[in-house]
């Protein structure tokens, strides 16, 4: 009866849920590829080469070259790393702060909860593009500030989700039990309640990850995303739009990478949700 995570169990587990399997394959593929891309790429990521401008995919350049003769494969490898990093940190910032706010206000309730949730609603009703724009104008451009701005944007939705989860568990008997044993509220929230919300939080994080990837792309469209010549998938897609007819490979490869990456994360979260029976 005891469930331990032996290798055999993991295998069975994966076989039972193809979503997790496919998701895991996709996500780990891109994780490994982008990790390699941070240390080694076939060509130097930002190196321009006037002698090989806009070449179609070939054995030398598997994904072709762009209008500056840069190798698209190298840029996709390196850029997906940047994209993943931006998305991950964004989700971490939004997730951690949002979770803390949501958990505390949800557990204690009262007037503070009321005020913070009101503010939360206000933030949520503020057009996010506008907020991002204003935040970046305020913070200044740059990868770190993009991450910060997006992270801040992500706080309210996390807070709202975690709050409702905490409220769901707040009056369960096991929490009452913990209370009548005199366990401190902070420990109740962190150790007793939050682990139960982990599936919801993970799912929200996966969705958040995807939104962050898309948001970064939109920011690039506004010229506020990751700064060139650092590649990010969104920025590459943005730069590719002028060349859609002549050199479609600029757009196709980063585009496919974004789609598969997001697909992987989404499958993974759905699979976990199914397995956990939520």
């Amino acid at each position: 009866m005891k469930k331990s995570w032996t290798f055999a169990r993991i295998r069975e587990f994966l076989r039972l849920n193809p979503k997790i399997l496919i998701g895991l394959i996709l996500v780990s593929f891109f994780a490994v590829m982008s990790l390699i891309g941070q240390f080694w790429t076939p060509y130097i990521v930002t190196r321009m080469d006037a002698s090989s401008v806009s070449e179609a995919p070939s054995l030398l350049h598997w994904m072709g070259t762009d209008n500056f003769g840069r190798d698209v494969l190298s840029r996709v490898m390196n850029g997906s790393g940047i994209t993943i990093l931006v998305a991950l940190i964004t989700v971490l910032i939004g997730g951690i702060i949002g979770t803390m706010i949501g958990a505390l206000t949800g557990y204690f309730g009262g007037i503070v909860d009321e005020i913070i949730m009101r503010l939360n609603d206000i933030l949520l009703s503020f057009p996010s593009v506008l907020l991002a724009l204003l935040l970046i104008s305020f913070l200044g451009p740059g990868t770190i500030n993009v991450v910060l701005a997006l992270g801040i944007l992500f706080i309210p939705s996390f807070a709202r989700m975690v709050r409702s989860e905490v409220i769901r568990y707040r009056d369960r008997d096991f929490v009452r039990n913990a209370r009548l044993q005199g366990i401190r509220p902070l420990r109740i929230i962190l150790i007793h309640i939050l682990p139960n919300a982990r599936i919801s939080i993970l799912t929200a994080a996966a969705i958040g990850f995807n939104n962050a990837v898309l948001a970064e792309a939109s920011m690039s469209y506004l010229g506020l995303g990751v700064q060139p010549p650092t590649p990010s998938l969104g920025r590459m897609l943005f730069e590719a739009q002028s060349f859609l007819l002549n050199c479609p490979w600029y757009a196709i490869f980063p585009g496919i990478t974004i789609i598969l990456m997001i697909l992987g994360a989404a499958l993974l979260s759905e699979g976990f949700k199914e397995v956990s029976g939520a």
Partner: protein
Amino acid sequence: MSMDELLRVSHLNVSFPDDDPYDGIEERDTVVRELSFTMKPGDILGVVGESGSGKSMTALSVIRLLKKSARVDSGQILFQGKDLLSLSEEELCDLRGLGISMIFQEPMTSLNPVLRIESQVSEALRLHPGKEPLSTEEIHQKVRKVLEDVGLPDPEGVCRMYPHELSGGMRQRVMIAAALITDPSLLIADEPTTALDVLIQEQILDLLKEIHERTGVAILFISHDLHVIRRLCDRVLVMYQGQIVEEGETKEVLDHPQHEYTKTLVARIPRVATVPGDTPVLEMEDVTIYYPPRGASSGLFRKVKVEPYVYGASLKLYQNEILGIVGGSGSGKSTIGKVLTGLHGIYDGTIRLFGQPLEKVLAGNERPQMIFQDPYSALNPSHTIGWTLMETLRSKGTRSREKQQEMALQMLEEVGLSEAIFHRYPRDLSGGQRQRCCIGQALLYDPKILIADEPVSALDVTVSSQVLELLLKLQKQRHMSMIFVSHDMNIVRLICHRVIVLDHGRIVEEGPSEEIFAHPSHAYTKKLIEAAMLE
């Protein structure tokens, strides 16, 4: 087969895929095994057994409403001579609601929340228009008639209502009305009274009996409650692990059980064996308990208006005593426990524990502990049992992990569980095991006062008596005082020294349990005792 057979089930086998997602082994659990029985028109057949015995599966296979994952492996179900297992989905739809109707355990969730009562009651009629479809007006008249038949006052008004506007008992009446509107020859009732209050249970049983007498409908009655079965059924099947272990006249089977399992089923509830001392450990004087104000923000805009839960209650609990608190749902019986454990803090009056004010005790390490009704909800699903037990010790101040583990293991043994449970999660345990864990957790805190809030009402009968036995044993060993909150008069009578009867937040009667059960003075107490159908 003879024409006077309504239903014949023979050699029925039903299986489910193994529902554990964690071990990927493709195997099927057979939940009903070689089941055979027959019913004549007008029979009332009871099926009794604990959860997981396959009794509901049997009912659902007759009306062919098993979940998609369930599979009838072999067997035959003949209804009025038709083989139900060979009917197409379309033919089944024609049969359901017309020849066979069914009512379920949860009247709230079993009614569609967004549809009016009329359209739900008339649904079967509209789905089976027959040769001459009825006009809207005729349907309405029929709905009125059947609502009246099930004893609902103001059927016209009820027609226009939504399920949430009705009480639990009324909803179950509506369910019954919807099932009976087409005059079916067989009514399957799957635990129809389990979710209801004692007094309401009683009324629904009366209603079923009355309907049976009037219409002659055959009833296949599924229940875990022997008293209910005894009350209603002519014949009874006892199911255990998917098989029929005993079958016969109800009185015969219940009074002279042959099979081992049936014997444990009818086993007696343990009796209290301690003698209470005369020092009160708890004194409540004129305590009025209020609802928390509704909505946190409302206080901002208007004066907080509170309604009391419990009015001016005074009571005492002595050392080694077990005090029963009984009452219907909404009587406020659970609230007293919540106040004593500090879960609910809005009250007037004085409460003293061990001679000290309640607040002082709550701030220290002598808090009363509580055992909850639903052992699943009371255990944190994301932590192992061992962790939960150790967490209690941690909160009490035991620092060393070895010590914690040792004490937790010892407690598991004490509550009759194996060491292996230590690493398990609540979802891996049965209801009885969970409740034992809850008791263990409460006792690790080493309380002087234990509040048991309906500790066995979510458990099967056999398990329930074992858990009660454990509670009584530990109460004796540890010299605890206990408040036992329950709606079950049978249990209260046997295990409590004294009883308090609560009705709508007021103590209407109080006294030694023998006395109260022998000579109830208040009308409400009398009703409760009657409903409990004590032998």
